[in-house]
């Protein structure tokens, strides 16, 4: 659905991978879903084809096999390292549908994964991540090792430290008598949060209706098929030329049934799925909110604690205590940490501000396309319906003339 993204100023037409112009490009496609494994352990594997002329990649083309959990790995790595950026969302895990693995489900997932990867590849910051390269280039076994290492019981030391720090922060809160977590009071940020939450509600509603609309198309198709059959049988009772008219009407009805099923599928892939994707994107933004909140809290705590430590140090200095040296080292460490936390927090803010602009523009383009395809599909369907019935009408008129009806 997304044209191969280009790095650099956008060109007016989509770039062919074999373009001789030498402009940098990175184009990825997720294709060929294949069901592997048995029973409960069954899973889908995808071919991920990378075409690029960027030097940092191994070659002009690379093909690897990936499964859903690999995508999850990539997502989580990015989410961890690029806080503040709205990480492109993944399609849902869906434990139930997995069993059924309907062709439709597989196609929807494949499409969503393709969009996911390409969004990363076209994001100015994310596309430079090492994890992306790993994902695109490592062979299956290596990927599996990397993935299970991360998601296993063994957590990286850094993670443990972070968890400890979170606990520490919470304890400090309680000790300092602050039950309520500290929150930003920036009015513009408040407005943004309010907007995002409201947007999620509205989008969820439209997406729900879109799902229903797909279903309705299918049901109409079904009943047209049944109606066509019944009309044909009824026509057989009438016999002769009137019977032929019935038969024609019945056939067209069945034909339209097929067209409706097609349109239902089109509606699902090109309209409902983009809406669902929109909802997921909004949820990803909400994730960023919590990262920002955490970062803010940490920044506040550390700033607070550093200040206290500073005051304490001053006191010790004046008293010429032998603990001074120790305290000074501690203070310096804490100050560094505090500055780091503040820097992280500010990075998040900066990123979010850029991201929100990007998000709005991206969504306008994507929804615009979805609307266009929706309208086009509906127009085509209506025209097909009109054409089919029109042909029956000519038959009816021919019959009327020949049998002397008016």
């Amino acid at each position, binding site marked *: 659905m997304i044209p191969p993204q280009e790095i650099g100023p956008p060109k007016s037409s989509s770039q062919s991978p074999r373009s001789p112009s030498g402009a940098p490009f990175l184009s990825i496609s997720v294709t060929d879903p294949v069901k592997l494994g048995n029973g409960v352990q069954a899973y889908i594997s995808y071919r991920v084809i990378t075409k690029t002329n960027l030097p940092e990649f191994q070659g002009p083309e690379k093909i690897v096999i990936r499964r859903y959990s690999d995508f999850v790995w990539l997502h989580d790595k990015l989410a961890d390292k690029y806080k503040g950026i709205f990480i492109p969302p993944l399609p849902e895990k869906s434990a139930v549908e997995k069993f059924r693995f309907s062709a439709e489900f597989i196609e929807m997932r494949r499409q969503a994964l393709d969009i996911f990867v390409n969004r990363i590849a076209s994001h100015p910051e994310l596309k430079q991540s090492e994890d992306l390269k790993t994902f695109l280039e490592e062979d299956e076994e290596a990927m599996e090792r990397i993935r299970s290492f991360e998601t296993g019981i063994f957590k990286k030391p850094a993670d443990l430290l972070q968890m400890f720090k979170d606990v520490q922060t919470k304890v400090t809160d309680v000790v300092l008598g602050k039950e309520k977590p500290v929150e930003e009071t920036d009015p513009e940020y408040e407005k943004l949060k309010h907007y995002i939450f409201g947007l999620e509600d509205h989008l969820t509603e439209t997406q729900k209706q879109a799902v229903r609309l797909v279903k309705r198309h299918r049901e109409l198709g079904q009943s047209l098929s049944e109606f066509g059959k019944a009309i044909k049988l009824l026509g057989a009772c009438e016999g002769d030329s009137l019977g032929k008219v019935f038969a024609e009407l019945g056939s067209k009805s069945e034909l339209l049934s097929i067209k409706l099923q097609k349109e239902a599928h089109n509606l699902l892939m090109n309209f409902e799925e983009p809406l669902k994707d929109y909802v997921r994107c909004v949820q990803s933004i909400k994730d960023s909110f919590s990262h920002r909140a955490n970062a803010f809290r940490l920044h506040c705590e550390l700033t607070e604690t550093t200040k206290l430590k500073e005051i304490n140090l001053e006191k010790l200095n004046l008293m010429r205590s032998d603990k001074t040296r120790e305290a000074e080292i501690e203070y310096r460490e804490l100050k560094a940490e505090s500055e780091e936390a503040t820097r992280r927090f500010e990075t998040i803010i900066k990123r979010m501000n850029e991201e929100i602009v990007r998000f709005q523009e991206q969504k306008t383009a994507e929804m615009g396309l979805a609307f266009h395809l*929706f309208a086009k599909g509906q127009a085509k369907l209506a025209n097909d319906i009109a054409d089919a019935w029109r042909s029956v009408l000519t038959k009816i008129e021919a019959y009327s003339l020949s049998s002397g009806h008016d």
Partner: protein
Amino acid sequence: MMGSEVAFGFDSPPEIEEMESLALSDSPSTVSSLPAAISASSDGDLFISPPSALHFPLSSTASGDGGDPAPSTASSFLDPPSYADIVFSPFDSQNGDDDNGADNGSMLRRDSSPRSTRAARSDYLKISVSDPNKEQETVNSLVPGGGTYFTYLITSQMRFGSAANGDGESEPVEFSVRRRFRDVVTLANRLAEGYRGFCIPPRPDKSVVESQVMQKNEFVEQRRSALEKYLWRLAEHPVIGMSDELRVFLQAKGKLPLPTTTDVASRMLDGAVRLPKQLFGAAAQVAPQEVVQPAKGGRDLLRIFKELKQAVTIEWGGVKPLLVEEDKEFLAKKEKMQDLELQLSTASQQAEALVNAQQDVGETMGEMGLAFIKLAKFETDQGIYNSQRIRATDTKNVATAAVKASRLYRELNAQTVKHLDTLHEYLGLMLAVNNAFSERASALLTVQTLMSDLTTLNIRIDKLEAASSKIFGGDRSRLRKVEELRETIKVTEDAKSCAIREYERIKENNRNELDRLDQERKDDFLSMLKGFVINQVGYSEKVANVWATVAEETSSYARGNS
């Protein structure tokens, strides 16, 4: 099953009010007037009756030029006529001449559809049923908890005959009578007796309802509407429409002057009183005048038993009766009718499912449109970035289109209901056909029974004569008995002739009616298919236009993408 009482179960979607109030910037006045009219009359009344001019546009040849206004030549393939314009001729003032809104079916058909052509031959110009009124039962009714019933005002005009009105002009004479449902039952029964072998339109159901249920407006309205349809169908029937029974029903003031049918219980009682006399000799024969009516439902219990026995003998005894249904043509026809009934039933069901599915698509499209409208408004209110404003505009365009399409679907559906209703009607008519067939069978049975009686009587005479001849000088008692039997035979012969005449008459009626039905059915079905298809074409074109506009407006997003 009366076709008219089939409910499609359309509920006005909850947001219908919201959708109607949306200001659609470019909606043509015709489109916006229709929904208002439909929603006004759609509460519970599924058979919205805008003038048929709306859905038979191409056959409105009132001027009699016999040609379709829209080109039906080969050139139509190159430039298909836009049925959209023709389909959407605005409402006539038809909807304006209502009294208190209840009279929404004066059944005037101004177009030249087959129905209207038949209607034009009827003696009656107009029949309408209105003004249901609750009245108190003066006599104690058998039904406990009863005591109230409804009467309906039935107004009719005859085609011929006129009277001067106050302005010195002459206008058709109008009759107004008040009738209750019981009277309708009486009418139906008298017609059934008098027109055996005809396909008499089936009357509305006689539901045994408690007085509480009777209060419900819906029930009364359904009944009113069904009565109107029923009376009109009677009027349209080439023979029954001219009947005295109908005329009397429509015109005789005061109490309906038709003999009422007493209920089954008292009939049986009367019959039971006669039975001993019949068994013991006196009235052992069937009076000739009685054979013109079927045994069942009559007072003559003995006759009922005899015919029953006869039927069983034929069925199980393997005895070939003396007269059988030999008319191969009829038998083939009968089979065809049975097949037709089966297919009609299926088609009718599927038509209903289709209509429901169409309705659902329209509804969901509308609800989705509303959700998008809300989204667009939200984005507009909260918008900071230009991209948001653009997106909000796009969203609103799509939403408006969805709501428009939704309305069009609903209108299409209302018309589809009207057309496909023909299937339901003819399914209901199958009942009439079956009745006509069973009258024939029952008349045949009467003849067979009488013939069998005669055979029996002759055998008895032979036996008696044989026994008597063995006695020297004759057996006076036996010979007397033989004389009596010969008398009986004479009467029975008369009855048999009567019965045969009746049977032949019914056969003739059957034949005529089946021919008429076949022709009418072909006409009506063709009309139905034509109307259905024209509708679909017209509305689909409109829907296509709506979406094509949006596709055009959003085409810039498709650069490079197919």
